[in-house]
């Protein structure tokens, strides 16, 4: 018996090594490098120095962090709001139709952010996009370019996250007890009223956790703000990439990554605390 319980742990050695070496160590490195001090011979020397965080604590970077948080909150709200009715209707479809939609949603969800940004750039361009179609229909006199702009960033980011919102709402809406709806209808509630007084309250935990996930997901977007926005639309993720790849400033990139990590973690913590308080 001792032998077999030991072998259970032995079987986990390769996976433990992979996760430990390639997740735990790299992750710890970010934390260490973010507080390293500059050195002459190399880029940085391990130690404890908060100068990179002091550099963050200037209005330029704080404003970027606030902008990132605001943009992500807006995207999460729009994305969940338009995905909710769709997912609700989707769960009433026959299994086969549901499967077809889910396949398409998954395929779009997996599409590289690079390709999504490219598609929207074409769609919003002057010569081969919506502007062109509007010109042909005679709605506008001359076609015009709609990117880069804040609207382009928002439209493409919502597009990027909407498949996730659908999949995050799908389990709750698909498992929802349909007899509740029938009860509400029998008691004389209109479909719209049933939707707002039964469907939404019943699925509130999924809505909240879904919105948080979309928020964190949008924080990770890198290409869309760069390609479809102006520098004033750049988020923390864009700045991290910029520092790491084009300025070779690993310590500052790491410090920004720690800020991004803290931002994601605090939003997740805040919302789960609110959720628990609402339940109690």
């Amino acid at each position, binding site marked *: 018996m001792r032998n077999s319980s030991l072998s259970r742990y032995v079987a*986990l050695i390769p996976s433990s090594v992979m996760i430990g070496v390639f997740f735990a160590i790299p992750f710890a490195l970010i934390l260490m490098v973010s507080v390293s001090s500059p050195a002459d011979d190399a880029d940085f020397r391990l130690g404890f120095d908060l100068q990179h965080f002091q550099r963050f604590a200037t209005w330029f970077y704080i404003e970027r962090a606030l902008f990132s948080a605001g943009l992500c909150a807006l995207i999460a709200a729009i994305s969940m709001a338009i995905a909710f009715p769709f997912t609700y209707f989707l769960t009433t479809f026959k299994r086969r139709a549901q499967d077809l939609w889910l396949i398409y949603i998954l395929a779009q969800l997996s599409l590289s952010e690079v390709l999504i940004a490219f598609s929207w750039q074409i769609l919003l361009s002057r010569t081969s996009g919506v502007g*062109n179609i509007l010109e042909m229909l005679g709605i506008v006199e001359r076609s015009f370019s709609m990117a880069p702009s804040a609207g382009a960033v928002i439209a493409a980011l919502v597009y990027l996250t909407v498949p996730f919102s659908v999949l995050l709402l799908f389990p709750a809406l698909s498992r929802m007890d349909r007899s509740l709806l029938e009860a509400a209808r029998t008691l004389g509630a209109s479909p719209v009223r049933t939707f707002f007084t039964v469907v939404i309250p019943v699925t509130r935990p999924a809505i909240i956790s879904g919105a948080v996930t979309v928020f964190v997901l949008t924080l990770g977007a890198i290409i869309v703000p760069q390609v479809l926005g102006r520098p004033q639309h750049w988020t923390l993720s864009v700045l991290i990439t910029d520092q790491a790849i084009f300025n070779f400033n*690993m310590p500052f990139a790491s410090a920004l990554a720690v800020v991004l990590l803290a931002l994601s973690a605090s939003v997740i913590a805040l919302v789960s605390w609110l959720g628990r308080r609402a339940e109690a």
Partner: protein
Amino acid sequence: MITALRRIYMALFALYLIGPIIVITAVSFNAQKFLAFPPRGFSLRWYAAIFVEADWFAALMNSLTIALASALLSTAIAVPVAYAAWRYGLRYARALFALGIAPFILPPVIMALAFLLFFSSVGVNGLMANVIIAHAIFLLALPLVTISLGLESIDKALIEAAQTMGASGWTVFRTVIVPIAAPFALAGFAFCFVLSLNEYIIALMTVGFTVETLPVKIFNALRYGYTPVIASIAVLFLLVNITVFSLIARFSNLARILGAMD
């Protein structure tokens, strides 16, 4: 009235989802070198270019190799962890499981930077193996979750019945557990494959300057102006994604994997 509103809403939503894809597809069949919508002329040359032009083809092969290898590695890491957590309820396995989920939840740029720091401090730079390992760890959550969903769908009474009739541990594993859980493991593998194929920032930061994957090459190409090849790759990728997820739906239970009840 409600039904009409509902139809309009569904149509608008579908248009939003599919509209950009329609434009990209139309652009990819354009006969000329510049992008135009509505397209002028019809040509398959931008699809041929992916396979004929050496640098696009090299990027395609890099992407496919990395996606296949990292999906295999990721599934291989996930199987023992998910199994030990389910079968023996080991606390250690559950902790590993949680640790394995974490990289996927964080904004990807954080893991990309972590891998960049790690490989450059170890002194192993620019190898394809780096991005294979990085993707396997980043996407580990997918096989972990699908495999444990598969294992949880096994009725424990079935295992007890097999044991009562004298089946050894190995026989139970081979004849009861594997047949039920295998489609879910395969689904995890397929999810990993597709997401690795489409991943950009980790590939860029780990090996972007030596091993160009398709997303990295596309982003580099975007900076030097557009080529309709990018549109044809977008369509090709979407078709690959649709094929893989259709296969999952065909051989496994897609709605269940995504959280519906049976």
